[in-house]
């Protein structure tokens, strides 16, 4: 009974967050700020993705940006083809291909004429990539630091391939000069509330989908795997399969975030699959609390928000990196479970006190009873 009460509370909290982010455009009529906040919300979605694999299944993915970048390129390819009839002089090719002496649209570009295909690919390509990588890692029982290093290395490889294959990917410059995203007769201008709503709605959907996964028995088993992998195996669960599943789901969400990022930023670039972004995600999630989806999202919003404010103000132009680093160290030292953990501790204290007992006496007393019964 306590459990249902607690989970109802949690649902309400998530709902409040989603409503809050959806209300923002009503009070804000600044195209630049809306675009900036849409970007932060995309980062929040990326943080939720990492929270699923790291916080719930114990898989520290240092290469979360790989799948983010793959998603963003899928969207960029579709939007680039949207500009083709207008912008290109010759052969209906994207401009950078013309500059690179490509004469024919590569086969893997062709299907991106269809927006539907691009939307599906933006989720399935990253998810498949992660599933394959996961298959090798988790079937081979690679865990902990080693898994983290493999994800990081895989990202560097994908990043290099994209930069190297300039003819097909635009290389260092990425894919720029894109059409506006249009779906079902709606067009999404990056500097408008429509794009903000799109991102906010997707984030809300992702939050509740992820919440449902963590509350299912599969979510419970994943947490058990995080605690004691071997114990789970000897109950008959195929641990590798569970890990591959959540790794792929996390990658699919990151891919969706990547697609939205392309819409918001109006380009895709190899920096989207870069080490700096990927490690930033880990920091957001650590600050927000990796074992809370909402905490991870808030962590991303707070850290990127503060970062944005500091780096844009003249006084901190030189020192903002140092301040961010200091904040991170302080959080890890004093709030090992992040902001979400601190919040839980506080609410627990508030809820216990009105019961008419000092905050500390309630729990140990309860435990003493079970001890007595046990002995």
């Amino acid at each position: 009974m306590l459990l249902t009460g607690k989970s109802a509370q949690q649902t309400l909290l998530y709902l409040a967050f989603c409503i809050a982010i959806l209300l923002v455009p009503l009070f804000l009529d600044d195209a630049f700020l809306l675009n900036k906040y849409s970007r932060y919300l995309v980062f929040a979605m990326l943080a939720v993705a990492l929270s699923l694999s790291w916080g719930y299944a114990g898989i520290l993915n240092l290469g979360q940006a790989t799948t983010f970048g793959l998603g963003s390129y899928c969207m960029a390819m579709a939007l680039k083809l949207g500009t083709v009839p207008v912008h290109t002089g010759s052969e209906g090719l994207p401009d950078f291909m013309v500059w690179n002496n490509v004469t024919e649209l590569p086969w893997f570009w062709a299907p991106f004429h269809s927006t539907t295909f691009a939307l599906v690919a933006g989720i399935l390509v990253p998810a498949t990539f992660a599933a394959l990588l996961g298959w090798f890692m988790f079937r081979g029982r690679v865990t902990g630091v080693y898994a983290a290093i493999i994800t990081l290395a895989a990202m560097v490889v994908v990043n290099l391939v994209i930069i190297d294959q300039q003819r097909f990917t635009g290389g260092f410059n990425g894919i720029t000069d894109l059409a506006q995203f249009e779906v079902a007769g709606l067009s999404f201008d990056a500097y408008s509330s429509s794009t903000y709503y799109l991102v906010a709605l997707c984030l809300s959907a992702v939050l509740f989908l992820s919440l449902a996964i963590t509350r299912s028995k599969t979510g419970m088993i994943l947490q058990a795997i995080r605690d004691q992998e071997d114990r789970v195996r000897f109950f008959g669960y195929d641990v590798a399969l569970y890990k591959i599943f959540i790794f792929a789901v996390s990658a699919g969400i990151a891919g969706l975030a990547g697609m939205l990022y392309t819409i918001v930023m109006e380009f895709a670039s190899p920096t989207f699959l870069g080490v700096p972004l990927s490690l930033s995600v880990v920091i957001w999630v650590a600050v927000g609390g990796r074992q809370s989806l909402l905490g991870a999202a808030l962590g991303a919003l707070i850290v990127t928000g503060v970062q944005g404010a500091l780096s844009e103000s003249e006084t901190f132009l030189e020192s903002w990196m140092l301040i961010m680093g200091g904040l991170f160290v302080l959080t890890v030292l004093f709030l090992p479970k992040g902001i979400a953990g601190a919040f839980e501790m506080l609410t627990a204290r508030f809820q216990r006190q009105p019961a008419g007992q000092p905050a500390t006496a309630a729990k140990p007393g309860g435990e003493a009873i079970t001890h007595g019964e046990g002995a």
Partner: protein
Amino acid sequence: MSDDGEIQLALNDVSVSFGGFVAVAGLDLAVGKGELRCLIGPNGAGKTTALDLICGKTQATSGEIRFEGRSIDKLKEYEIARAGIGRKFQVPSVFRELTVRENLHIGQSRQTGVLANLVRFGGSMDDDELERLAELVGLSDALDSAAAHLSHGQTQWLEIALILAQDPALILMDEPTAGMTGQETGKTAELFNRLRGQHTLIVVEHDMGFVRDIAETISVMHQGKLLAEGSLKEISSDPQVREAYLGSGGIGHA
């Protein structure tokens, strides 16, 4: 060996070595359905390794392990578990960050598929069964507290309860009373006697008082082999067994 039941588990000439050290050397062991078998032996006799071999944690170098008529020595751990073998580890291993209730839900593993469990909310065990198990091991009042808050003895019982939730035909128990107080050990013996007949049990144990309380047939291992088998009376008068335990103060003090 009791002759009344069919043989459920059979190890035929099973050996395993780790980098030259032979932990189990040609072990033969047969356990009947519903039997409660105690496996004893001096330190380093290969008892835990024998359990590891049965549950798939360790692969045998040679020999064959058969369970309910099929060969299981090449199966993966989770396949062996699904075939109906449960394992309790020597160091109690439960999910410390989850509540006792959630722990029990995970133990109940009739449904092991990712997608099947994805659409299952609030666990898969009905509350009556869960509460019955919790009561059986004295954890009724601790259902909603995190497993990390349990005492050592309670953690041992929780793991036993998890195995019972799994409901395997054969349960392997590695020193289930390690670290328990005398009173807790007594309760555990009581519990095992209740399980007798419903599950086949193989119990590795050092505490001879506990073995005395539960044993019907005892198998004695020494240097990776089966040394003797029989009732407590038979093996304690066996000169070979006395020899093996020499230096460790005799069987009663092992």
